[in-house]
């Protein structure tokens, strides 16, 4: 299947064409990652740096000043650029996609959907780009959840209501038609809150009317709890249910019992 709109960016090893848009930056090609950087980076995050980085690395697909590109056109490295507008995604969206390693896409053909792969920008650069994207419109800011205020039991309940159908009840991830659902154990509180509010790829986005900030705190508390669930039964074998249990039955119990039979019984020997 295709994911319309995201596509068309490539980590270009031989990227020598500098994209000059707006107040374009003079960039040095960096073959390993394909990231275009201005020759001079200020020591602190700045709107200007964000703008330059945006122009060099994002605008091929997301368009000039976050206008988006709906009909693909050739951009840097002869990549057919096409991507959603970023005018009103705000700091929240930019921070989430950049910090999680969704963006820039590792592979324009990456299916299904953008993959969480690697972070190519420094913290300073990300902060700058987030500032820039936030300045493009009236989007939501970066959320600041406080799971300490949440309630674990409410969290489990809400998580089962809204999330477990895709993420598995212990947030171990799984599969839904068209996408791989990631496990949530490695996420920070902020990333969980952002994902809930943004709804990346196939995930629905939940507004504060559907899940209030207080409820979100409880959900985050529960998700963080799944890092160390109560495995009082012994070895948790992954906390994903009967598949590992079946493996234990066949690869631990059955061999032990077969060995016992072989020791007690006699082997075939023609005399």
């Amino acid at each position, binding site marked *: 299947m295709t994911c319309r709109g995201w596509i068309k960016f490539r980590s270009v090893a031989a990227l020598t064409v500098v994209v000059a848009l707006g107040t374009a930056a003079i960039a040095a090609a960096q073959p390993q990652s394909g990231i275009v950087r201005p020759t001079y980076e200020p020591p602190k995050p700045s709107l200007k740096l964000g703008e330059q980085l945006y122009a060099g690395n994002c605008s091929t697909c997301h368009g000039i000043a976050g206008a988006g590109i709906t009909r693909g056109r050739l951009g840097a490295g002869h990549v057919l650029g096409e991507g959603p507008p970023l005018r009103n995604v705000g700091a929240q969206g930019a921070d989430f996609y950049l910090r999680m390693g969704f963006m820039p896409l590792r592979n324009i053909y990456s299916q*299904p959907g953008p993959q969480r792969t690697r972070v190519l920008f420094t913290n300073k650069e990300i902060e700058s780009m987030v500032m820039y994207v936030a300045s493009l419109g009236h989007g939501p800011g970066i959320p600041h959840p406080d799971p300490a205020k949440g309630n*674990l*039991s409410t*969290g*489990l*309940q809400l998580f*089962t*209501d809204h999330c*477990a*159908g*895709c*993420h*598995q*009840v*212990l947030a171990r*991830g*799984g*599969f*839904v*038609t068209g996408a*791989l*659902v990631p496990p949530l154990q490695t996420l920070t509180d902020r990333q969980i809150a952002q994902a809930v509010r943004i709804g990346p790829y196939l995930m629905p986005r939940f507004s504060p009317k559907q899940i209030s900030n207080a409820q979100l705190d409880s959900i985050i508390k*529960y998700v963080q*709890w799944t890092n160390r*669930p*109560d*495995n*009082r*039964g*012994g*070895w*948790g*074998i992954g*906390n*994903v*249910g*009967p*598949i590992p*249990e*079946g493996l*234990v*039955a*066949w690869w*631990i*119990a*059955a061999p*032990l*019992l*077969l060995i*016992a*039979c*072989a020791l*007690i*019984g*006699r*082997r*075939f*020997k*023609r*005399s």
Partner: protein
Amino acid sequence: MIDPVRDPVRFIDERTSAAPLIKKAMRYLFPDHWSFLLGEVVLYSFIVLIATGIYLTLFFVPSTAHTIYHGPYKPLDGQTVSDAYKSAVNLSFSVKAGLLMRQTHHWAADVFIAAMAMHLMRVFFTGAFRKPRELIWLIGLLLLFTSLLEGYLGYSLVDDLLSGMGLAIGYGVGLSIPVIGGPMTLAIFGAPFPGKPEFWSRMFITHVLLIPLLLAVLIGLHLSLVAARHHTQFKESARHTERRVVGLPTFPAQTPRSIALLLFTAAVLFLLGGLIQINPIWQWGPFEPWLATNGAQPDWYLGWLIGALRLMPSFDVTVGHFTLVPNPFWGGVLFPLFVLAVLAAFPWVERRLTGDRRVHNLADRPRNAPNRTAFGVAFLSWVFLIFVFGAADRIFVLWGLSYDTQLFMFRIGIWVVPLVLFFVVRRVCRELRAADLLEEDQERAERAVAQREGAVRAGT
């Protein structure tokens, strides 16, 4: 003077005249080949199941009435749950040895059916189902399929998230049976899913009394018929013939071996129960009809049905606007019935194909029946591949092989792999047998040479 052995024995014998019977039982001969012990592992798992199951019934409340959970498990604190679920969680947290018993019970169920499958393979591949043991074979199959239902009920009773989802699938598959499915499933559930509260009582009595009783009767019948016809044996020496049973007497030879195996089986099951977590229902949380979790799976022994449901192309048989055969019927009902029918009919089919109608007390080595062995491996691989596909979602998560790719691969693979295996296995069996014959020839020739040399030496 009272003799502590003779007197009680005489006392009993004078009142029951059981001595000849006991004597016969003690002289009954058991096979000593290791593979014949697999059936005993099944029996001992069953004993562990009964023992742990009785303990669980002392604390389990089979009711869907709602109640509020308050207890040591914080993520559930204050939640509305059913009595059944709450009692199962309490059993795991607050009852002495409760969790050990629950986990051992569940492991024993998994191992019980795994051991049954291995026992079935042994019987199949050695041709031990042939005349005069067809009835034993049929009862064994009945035991296996009844156990699948029993396991499913146990999994469903607890009313956690997984069991509720399992019941929803069972309900859907039940409805899919042509014509009678609707009324029958509604009669069992009492009302549309999730059913009436009485449904829980029905499941409970079936799980803790009716089916265990049926299993016990069938096991008794199975063993009586085995005893009546004796075990099969391999042709290992001239002493092993169709008419003579070679083996170890019950006492003193077999009894310690059996006791050792019983203890070992129980030890393995209790160790698993104590060390490896199984079905942590407190983590799954309670079930409500609108809830679901990704990656829900049945216990392994029903995985082949989930695999078949997923693998089956989507089509129904419709007459006008009436759906005569809904899709879940193919994978959920027809597929297991077909597997059962093939296994049940096999003794007679084989007899028809080979024209061999004789009585067989000697077991075949698998290589000596290449066609049967090849068919068995092919059929097993067919069921096994369908079983594996039941875990396709986990395979995707673990190894990134997309679900659609797997669907495509398996829809072809389940036909191609068994076909290839059939010819490969048959060839391997024939080669092994040829090698055996060659070896026998060689030995015979060497013996002849040795004899002649001996004669020559004696002559000089």
